[in-house]
């Protein structure tokens, strides 16, 4: 189904922060559940599986961001297309930075201590 132009461009404009939000909920939920239900103590490369899951979530989010960056605005006015394109790319970059920053914590902090 082809989205209406306004819906498409608004979703594109806010794509970066929406991906960030979904990623944030995912990693927070994952870590919360992992710490509440400590099961496997398996470690790989010095990190527990939860940490690898969070790294994988970061990689997945980055891939979605890259896919969004390939999409183009569809509004009729050239002025609008340029604005939406620039703003969406900048927000995608900000989201990528935030996701990378949050993911880096798994390398520095133990998953569950303090709980």
């Amino acid at each position: 189904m082809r989205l209406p132009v306004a819906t498409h461009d608004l979703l594109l404009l806010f794509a970066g922060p929406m991906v960030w939000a979904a990623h944030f909920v995912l990693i927070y939920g994952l870590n919360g559940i992992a710490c509440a239900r400590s099961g496997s103590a398996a470690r790989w490369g010095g990190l527990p599986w939860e940490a690898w899951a969070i790294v994988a979530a970061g990689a997945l989010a980055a891939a979605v961001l890259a896919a969004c960056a390939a999409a183009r605005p569809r509004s009729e006015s050239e002025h609008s297309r340029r604005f939406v394109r620039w703003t969406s790319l900048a927000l995608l970059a900000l989201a990528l930075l935030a996701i990378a920053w949050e993911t880096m914590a798994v390398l520095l902090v133990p998953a569950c201590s303090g709980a």
Partner: protein
Amino acid sequence: MSDPSATVDYPNPLPRPPGEFEQLQRAWKPPTGIRLLTRVNNTYVGVYYVGTSLLFFLLAGVLALVMRTQLAVPENTLVGHDLYNQLFTMHGTVMMFLFAVPAVEAMGVLILPNMLGARDLPFPRLSMYAFWAYAIGGLIFFATIFWGLAPRGGWFMYPPLTSYEYAPADNADWWLLGIGFIEISAIAGAIEIVVGVLRTRAPGMTLGRMPVYAWSMLVIAGMIIFAFPAIILGTLLLEIERSFQWPFFVAAKGGDPLLWQHLFWFFGHPEVYIIFLPAAGMVSMIIPAMAGTPLVGYRLVVLALVGAGFLSFGLWVHHMFTTGIPQLSLSFFSAASMAVSIPSGIQVFAWIATLAAAKRLRPLKVPMLFVLGFFFIFVLGGLTGVMVAVVPFDWQAHDSYFIVAHLHYVLIGGMVFPLFGALYYWTPYISRKALSERMGQWAFWLMFVGVNLTFFPMHLTGLMGMPRRVYTYADYPGWAELNLLSTGGAFLIAAGVLVVVVDMALHLRIGNPNAGNVWGAGTLEWLPNGDYGNRSIPIVHSREPLWDQPGLSEDVKEGRYYLPGTATGGRETIVTSAIDARPQYLLQMPGPGWSPLLAAVGTAGFFLLLTVKLVLPALLFGALALASVVWWLWGSDPGPSHPPVDVGGGLRLPVQMTGPDSHSWWAMVVLILVCGSIFGSLVFSYLFLWTVSPDVWPTAVEALPGLGSPAASAGLLLASALGVRWCSRRLAADPARSAGPLRGVLAVAVLLLCASLVVEVEAQQDAGLSPRETAYGAVVYGLAALQGLFVAISATMGLYTLARSFAGMLSAQRRQTFDNTRLFWNYTVVQGLVALALVHGFPRLLLG
């Protein structure tokens, strides 16, 4: 359609026909006498709204003065502990819920339509309803303090202190029901703002030419849509726990007080940005006007507003650093806190760069003074924010006066100073006279010195160990002097605010002609205007049209642009496309009316009487609200009552529209996002309670209802949705012969929807589940109760649609009502299916 900003300069020739302007004035003439209460125009509702929010600022400020007087000296006996608890609870609650959020929305209602080039916001009666519900409910809520009935649990009302065991009196209910329903006003305002900003901009005002203030309001309206549902759900759950002993927050029964903290702060931290971002938007309007140069880095500032709006949702655990959350989870929030500093920093640098590029700045005018005060105070609050963001420091400073100092620096610096600057800046837009420069300067300096004198010493008292919320203190070394200074400072702030009140009393004179563009600003709200907004709706070529389009004011005033009169004889505005702002249709707007006011009275009465357990009178008020809403809506959805109209330049626009391009469809989609957020918060609650108390979840499949009942419930839901879908197609394909079958199928669909709920509740009861025994039972019945609420609303909408069909008000072209019902119905069905999957699938998944 070609781009109107590129090809058409003057759609309408001069001179305009005689009588055209007079007809426009008549259409927008406000009622007088007792009917003054029924005014709906944004100019009036906006002024009432701003005025009421300022009244609450004054009232909450008086409470603060009483507290500061009590704390002026050690061992003071002016106020006892019980009243003091009510004072600090009411001060925080009123400032946050009845002043700050309403004030920013009120400024939006007042300014946005003119700034966007619209005649009014798209749902004037919704604004009026939101205002009256807030004003009536808020004033009654405030009055509880005179009867010792005010809440005592602090503005964030943590259970178990506020639950039935430790707070059995009605005080907490006033907060939960009183504030809970006022949040409905905030959401109504947010829907109005989202649709208004996206769909009623002047032709040519693309997203890239939209004023930064409009961007900030769009962002915070979006934030309200996702943040407020969490607190609405939280208040519902706590009120149900208090009234019916469903133990959502009772640890002994598998509940968790921390669930409340999550729900509260998921709303509470974005709330800080909900009040800060519009203030930042105001600053981004004031600085360019004062400097005489466009804002530097417009696109970066838009990026910053959107980025900060989103990232602020990742900060709520900020307020819960001492609650034992896993360290890595805390780190996610720390990282998000650092990330949010990027967009915040971008704005500050854009403002500094604009000031550096100023063509005019001196002498400093009062709005600019308040902006500079905002810089100083807010930056200090930000610095202490960095300190408390460091987890080990926060553990030491938590619940001390250091926190009181920090939050007041942030909130007063980040919201109150810009708001007062905005009052001085935008008064000439609504008043025949500007406010006094001299009095404004006095007010600024009194407030600036007062704020620093009050709150800077609190950092020190906090570091010395003085806890917040104590009603008195012993004469420890150093405490008395610092507290006395804080008290003196508080009275200086009050003196500054009093000067502003006197200034307003002397100089604020609402009416036309207004004082006009006294600052030489570049945005559309400074066009000559009246009750009708602008005489004609301009075509916009840039971000500062008044600077870049010479003669615009005169041309608009003379009627050379679109819609120089009233095309249908009533109130109307042009609806444009969301991205490019191309004209799409003419929206006929309702005029003054009693129904939204009565609906607000009914809503307020319903919730507030429930507080004191007067169930029958509450139900009567509820019936009044429902009847008033039906009366209000009955006249809407007029269908194609008028042929397309010429608004100038050969542009013929249809009058009204149905389907996905209509403003009504957009509003319903936004409402569904709100509903989805409420449901999402409840799903989170279910999963959160499972993580803390898996022992109260079923341990065997036999404890669960058999799969037959959820399958039957899901089948009934789907059948009802299919029925409504059939009605939709029938209405479009063969309206002449479809009335009878359509009514029959719609009535059956209502029954099927209700039956789906009955099947689910009976299944849980048959399985022996009780909502009172465990948190699991409470949250399962909580999901059913929420679904029940949505089923009731959908069924009511279905019956209302049926009634319109019987009245001959439903057709292929006149179907906004039907479309809204269908959208909400489909949402209810999807929510019901997800709830069934969660309640019946998740425990089975756990049990393998």
